[in-house]
């Protein structure tokens, strides 16, 4: 497993570190920025890496990341590790809030224990794509939908790959920790709700669904 770490940051950072690539972008444009990068570089990446890992400035991998990942590195599909989500307290100190991507390990949420499926993906309970290990062929096959702003591009993407039968096993280890705007504080609630339902409706597990662009937000 050879991983390229892509770090999304609002600031411009020069790319000089090996196996790490910084992309300057804002939250609402992440999908477009990532698509642009993959479109331009996919062939080069395919020669050098097997997986990409999308990170956000503020999220860091744990010190023993590779050691923890190693036993799971043979698993097929998008690997979903646990992320320790922190927030800043009133004094500006990082405080642990919750572990994310844990629902695959909870009883009764998935058909196969420890494996993401469409029903769970649809619920969007505690999923974040940040830190997931995505095989290059999957990212090439399923580009992000740019119409889904903010973090909803991740939700829609997960629903879509689950809908089309890709596998996404969980890794029950904390591989990442950090802060990011999971709550999307600056986005109006009605917009969040609209995007949420749009992403859910498009690839719900209801049979005979008509997949059209009609449900996408204008």
């Amino acid at each position, binding site marked *: 497993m050879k991983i390229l770490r892509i770090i999304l940051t609002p600031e411009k950072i020069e790319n000089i570190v090996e196996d790490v690539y910084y992309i300057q972008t804002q939250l609402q444009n992440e999908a477009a920025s990532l698509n642009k990068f993959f479109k331009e570089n996919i062939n080069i990446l395919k020669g050098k890496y097997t997986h990409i890992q999308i990170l956000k400035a503020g999220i860091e991998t744990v010190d*023993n990341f590779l050691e*923890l990942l190693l*036993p799971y590195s043979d698993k097929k599909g998008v690997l979903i590790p646990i992320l320790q989500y922190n927030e800043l307290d009133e004094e500006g100190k990082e405080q642990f809030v919750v*572990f994310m991507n844990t629902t695959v*390990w*909870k009883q009764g949420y998935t058909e196969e224990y*420890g494996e993401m499926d469409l029903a769970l993906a649809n619920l969007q309970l505690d999923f974040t794509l940040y830190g997931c290990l995505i095989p290059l062929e999957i990212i090439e096959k399923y580009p992000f939908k740019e119409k889904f702003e903010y973090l909803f591009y991740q939700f829609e993407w997960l629903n879509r790959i689950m809908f089309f039968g890709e596998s996404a096993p969980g890794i*029950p*280890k*904390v591989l990442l920790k950090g802060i990011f705007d999971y709550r999307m504080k600056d986005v109006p609630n009605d917009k969040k709700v609209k995007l949420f339902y749009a992403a859910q409706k498009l690839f719900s597990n209801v049979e005979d669904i008509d997949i059209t662009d009609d449900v996408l937000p204008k």
Partner: protein
Amino acid sequence: MKINKKKKSIFEEVFVNKTKTEWDPEKQKEYKLQKIESFFEELADKSNRIFFYCPDIPFAVGTVKIIYETVYMLRNSGYNAILLHEIKGYNPEWLTVEWKKELPKEFLSEKKKNKYTTPELKFKPTDTIVVPDGFWTVMKAFEKVKPVQKVVYALGYAGLSTTEPGFNWGSFGFNTVICLNQTIMEDYKSLWPELTYKTVTHWLDKDLYQPVEDITDIYPAIALNVRDKKKAIEIINIFTSRYPFLSMFQFKILKKLSLEDYINVLKHCCLHVLIDEDLGAPLPPLESVALKIPILTVFGRGYETIAVQDEKQQVKFLDDKDSFVVAEQIAEFCLGYLSNPTLRLEDNQWVLDLYSKEKAQGLLLEVFDYLQEEKIKTFVAIKNAVEEGKIKEDNLTPEKIENIN
């Protein structure tokens, strides 16, 4: 349970009824000696029966498992061990291993149209009856069945409250006690030193207790092995309310599972929590080590031996069984599990070596060879007494013959 006292054993038929006939004394003597010779033959080829009383417990429980495995081991070693159940038809479905089906069973009663009847089960002088400790009422019921050899199989069952005041197992003719481990033996010996004690050992079948090879098959799940259901619920409630961020850790309650399911569930869990101070033998900690699953437990009977044998101190003992403390220690372990590649136990070889089936079978055979020898000695004494004419027709009772040695 009913013991049909009206029916006479073959022994009584031979030595009591027949001797009261008008037979010639020499013929009687010859007949007795012939009968005794047939007993010797039985004992020599080990075809004499060894009945293991086994309670009809419908769900998975260690007592039934141990008794079945003991019977299986003895049969494999040439002894005619037979399971003795209460009611005809009992079959421990949860004991899903194949060999269970081949074990012969006898029943003390049979249910016909809502009435219990006693089947034709007669005991012979060459028979041995083995009853687990804790079933003193059963021992009492066998009091009149003489002169079979009677043995207690001390599994540490339900502590020491095993007879009514003023009695011990010897009062019912159960003078020999086979103890499953040294601690059980010491406990009983301190109480009733006049009985004869032999120690065997518990064992783990290494073919069944195979740890998972791939550590990715160990899941964030806690195997909870708690005797008191309320306690189990309390621990789960405290854990989930105090540590909601660890809700991904599932609790698997190890109760009423078939043996295979028990092992399958346990070997995929990341932690085994055992809170059972009434456990007769410390089998679950050994099972855990054999499967390389970390264990947190309270100190129970027989654990001293494990604590010494476990040089790397892999079995962790809880300081306090208070549910808050237990939940806290589970949470601490869970956090460790999330940030460590593996918290599996490294060394399970000492358990597999010390508690191997071969070793246990060796000890078990030593004990039953001893019992067989004792029985032969009794019959030699009877034979000598008959030959010397010491046994008279008018004073011949099974009790006297039993004490002739």
